[in-house]
Each structure stands twice: as structure tokens, then as C-alpha cells.
């Protein structure tokens, strides 16, 4: 991967991480976690671990759905 692309995808991951840390709303936090995952996935693919990328992209939404159960109770 050329350095410009690394900077771009790394920037997406950093933006997702920082905003997940700073946003106060729970739903906004979960959306920012999605952005963080979106920035991390191209690095995994670039190193050739496609099986890891498939597993990670299937497990990440499951963890989000687990958290949503608590968020709905805390929000209501």
C-alpha cells in the first residue's frame, strides 16, 4: 500500500477512535466505533489476511448488537 493510502485509512481510524472517545451520546459512540473498524479493515486486507478480515467484519457487528441491548435500556 502506498503511503498516501496508509495516511488516509489511518486518518479514518484515528477520527473514529477520537470521536468514539469524545462523543457523549451512546448511539454516536457506536457509530464512531463503526468508523474505527472501517479504518482498520484495509490494513488487515493489505497484509493479506483475508480470512481474518472476514472474521473481524462478521464479529464486529455482533459485539455492537450486544452493546445495543444495554444502550436501549439505559436510554429508555
Amino acid at each position, binding site marked *: 500500500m502506498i503511503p*498516501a493510502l496508509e495516511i488516509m485509512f489511518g486518518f479514518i481510524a484515528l477520527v473514529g477512535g477520537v470521536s468514539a472517545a469524545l462523543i457523549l451520546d451512546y448511539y454516536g459512540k457506536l457509530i464512531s466505533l463503526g468508523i474505527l473498524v472501517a479504518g482498520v479493515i484495509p490494513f488487515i486486507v493489505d497484509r493479506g489476511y*483475508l480470512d481474518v478480515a472476514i472474521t473481524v467484519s462478521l464479529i464486529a457487528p455482533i459485539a455492537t448488537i450486544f452493546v445495543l441491548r444495554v444502550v436501549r435500556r439505559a436510554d429508555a
Partner: protein
Amino acid sequence: MIALPLVAVVAVVAALRATFERNTARKLPYVNVLNFAIAASIVLLLDHPLSLVAAAAYFVGSTLEANAIASTYAGARNQ
């Protein structure tokens, strides 16, 4: 070779718009754009038959996540 940087620029713009959008419900379309762009860049990054499967898996997973967040948010607002 212009396709991959273009997709990456789209992804960066979508991520920035999604981050700096105040309204939570209005963040979700930008997140969907970001997911499209990342799924495209997975295919373009690695020339391998399995990368299509990886892009499909990422697309399914991220769409599921966005849908789950959206419907929970809507359900919490309706009550």
C-alpha cells in the same frame, strides 16, 4: 490506478462528514457511504478471488450494524 485513491478520498470525506454531523440520525447515511467505499477498497487493494468474499462479508456485517443501530434508535425515539 486512479480508482483506489479516489475511493479512499470518498471514504475520508464520508468519515469526516459522519463525525462532524450533530444529528445522530443524519450520521447514518454518511456511515453507509463509508461502508460502500471501504468495501470497494478491499476489492481494489488485493487482487485475489477471496477478496470478493471479504468485501461481501464486510458489506453484510457493516450494513447489519448500521441497521441495528438505526432501528434501535428509532424504537427508542418512538416510545
